[in-house]
Each structure stands twice: as C-alpha cells, then as structure tokens.
C-alpha cells in the first residue's frame, strides 16, 4: 500500500447536503439579523409628542431682584441676581427628581435623596454627582425671557446672564 504514509488529502469539497444546510442556516441568520434591526427600529419612536425645550418664562418684571422662582411644569428656575437674570435646571442631577427652593435656608434642596445646592447651582452636599446645569436664557422681541432647556451654558459666565 504505497499511499499509507502520505498525509490524508484534505477534504475541501462540500457535498450537496452540506451546501444546502449552510445555505439554510445562512439565510436564517440573515433573517434573524434583519428581524433584530427591524425590532430595534420599531421600538425607537421617530416622532415624539413632547413639550418644546424652549420655555417662555414671561416678562422679566415678574421676577423681583434677588429672587429664585421655580416653574414646576417646565422644571427650571429663573433667578434674578445682582449680575442679571439666569436660569438653572430644577431637575436633580442625581436621579431626576424636581428640586425646590428653600427661601428660609437660601438653598435649593432635593426631596428624594437630600442633595443640596447653592443658588448658583453649585452642590453643597448629597449624592448629586454634578451641579445643577445653567440653561441658555435670552430676551425675545416681545421682551419676554426665553429659556432653552436643551442647551447648557457655562456657570457664572458673563454671557450666561441676561441684563435688562
């Protein structure tokens, strides 16, 4: 038997059954991937009927000097300070509860887990990982204050205030 010591020939041919098995499994795999993509796209809403991020906070006259005003519906503070008007998010940076201004203590406090913030958003204590973000505030042509909740601005910067 002269062929006994030769290495066995590597079987690189695919028979009919193997070919169709691979074809079938491959098709199923492609269909499964397509279904997964379809399901993901379906679960992600394309249109959201959510309130606009831009809030009309009304005339600046509504806010007396050295006052902090919370609008519970939009979740923002409008603060009239010595330097001008500015706006803070009232949503706690810990887990999203609505904070409240405590005039007797002069601080912003979260009822859920006890985070406390200064009037300029800086954290005093508690589990909140970040200060309350400042929001872009400006005057429109009617003289009303507008706040864009989707845009953060740097804290305590000249451009982050509105002066009337």
């Amino acid at each position: 038997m002269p062929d006994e010591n030769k290495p066995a020939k590597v079987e690189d041919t695919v028979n009919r059954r193997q070919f169709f098995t691979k074809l079938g499994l491959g098709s199923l795999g492609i269909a499964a991937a397509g279904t997964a993509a379809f399901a993901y796209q379906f679960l992600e809403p394309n249109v959201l009927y959510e309130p606009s991020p831009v809030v009309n906070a009304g005339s600046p006259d509504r806010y007396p000097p050295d006052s902090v005003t919370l609008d519970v519906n939009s979740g923002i503070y409008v603060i009239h300070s010595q330097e001008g008007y500015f706006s803070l998010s009232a949503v706690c940076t810990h887990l999203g509860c609505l904070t409240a201004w405590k005039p007797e203590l002069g601080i912003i406090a979260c009822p859920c887990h006890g985070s406390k913030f200064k009037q300029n958003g800086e954290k005093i204590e508690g589990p909140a990982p970040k200060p309350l973000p400042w929001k872009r505030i400006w005057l429109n042509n009617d003289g009303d204050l507008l706040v864009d909740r989707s845009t953060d601005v740097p804290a305590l910067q000249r451009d982050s205030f509105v002066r009337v």
Partner: protein
Amino acid sequence: MAKTVDQYFDDLRGTRVWRSIFRSGTGASTLKRALAIQQNVFLHLFSTKVRTRMLSFSTTWYLGTLTLGTFFILVATGIPLMLYYHPSAPQAYADTKDLQFVVSSGMFLRNLHRWSAHTMVFLVFAHMFKVFYRGAYRTPREFNWVIGVILLLMTLLLSYTGYLLPWDQLAYWAITVGSNIASAVPVIGNKIRFLMLGGNAVNANALLRFYVLHCMILPLAAMFFVAIHFWRIRKDGGLYSHGSEPVTLRANASQAGVKVVQ
C-alpha cells in the same frame, strides 16, 4: 347497599367520556397512579413518584408553591382590573380612582392585587434564602438556581412596571428615579432609558410600554420560565431533601457495610 362518594367517582372515571379525556383510567396500582401524573399535560412536568419526606413541610416550607399561589391570585385579580383601566394619560389616574371608589369590589380586587404582589416578592426572597441555606442550589440543581434568579428578576420587573400604572405622583417619581438608575449602565444606558420609556421623559408612551410589559410580555415570560423551573425539579432528582440525596444514601450505605453501585 348505598354507594359511597368514592364509588360514584370510580363510576365517573370509568365512563367513556372520562376515559377519552384522561387515558390513565381507574385503579390504585403504582403504575396507574404514575400514569395519571405522566399523562396529564400540566402534571407531567412533575415527578411521577416522590418521597413523602420531600413533601413534608420542613423540607421546603412550601415557599415555592405559595409563590405560585400568589402568582395565580395576581393573574386572577389583574385581568378583571384591566377591564376598567385605560393605559393613557391622564385617564389612567381617573380609572385607578374609579377602581378604588366606584367599581363594585374594585377596591377589594385592587388591594388583593397589591398585597399579593408584595407577598410574592417576599415569598420569592424567602424561597431563595431557604434554598440557599439548605444548600439545595448545589449540583445537580445549579441550573435551576439560575432559572430562579431569572424568575426573581421577572418578579421585580413585574412589581416595577405595575408601580407606574396608577399614574399618581408616587408612580411618576418612582419611575423617573428608576429609569434614571437604568441610564447609569455604561455606554448604552441612555439608549436603554429611551427605549424603555419610549421617549425622553415619563409620559404617555412610557405608561403604555409599562402596561404592555406588565400585562402581556412579563407574565408570559414568567410562565415560560416557571414551566422550565418545575420541569427541572424532576430532571434534577426531585425536591432537595437531605436524607434522600444520593450522597447521603451512599454514605449511610457504606456505614452499614453495603457497597452501592452508582
């Protein structure tokens, strides 16, 4: 001589209609009794024979069975509640108040649903502690422990999704906090929150998604895993009872001088 109740039942079991439904027929032989279990679509998940020791109160405290009982109560009370509840904002809150104060027996059903939910969470934990401290999670039952952990997760998710449905302040802020916890997952956290709520905030989309999860997806998934959980008890050698374990039996036999061939 008058027939006893048992004899009437035996006659019933002998009728053609009964035999067409239950193939195992009458008779108290071991074979017949085993067939009665094995040929029933619900009971065939369980062992055809069990040691009485496995069924004694001290072995399990019946915690798993009691958990199943609360699950049945939750299904039986949850379905009628669905008939008066619209999962839309703000109607859901009004419907919950109607269920509480207007619908006949609505308060009873709602409270039963609520207390059973709390009880089920308690019983699941008690069951797991019992299994853990008795060492019943060990080989060959380790996979059934994994199924049990999945069922714990299902129970907690059912509790969590049900929490939003009254659409009151407690529900709203609990889901706000909970969904923000979900967004702490690295990289994909915000995506998870967005898909879970169907938006950027807890609103009508979130209520509908939680409703579908609570009333459809999670209960069906739970039933699927419960079936596997029960079937695995049989496959893994029955309920854990220390005195009936092969290890214990072998040790006892070797002490008595008998060689056990496994």
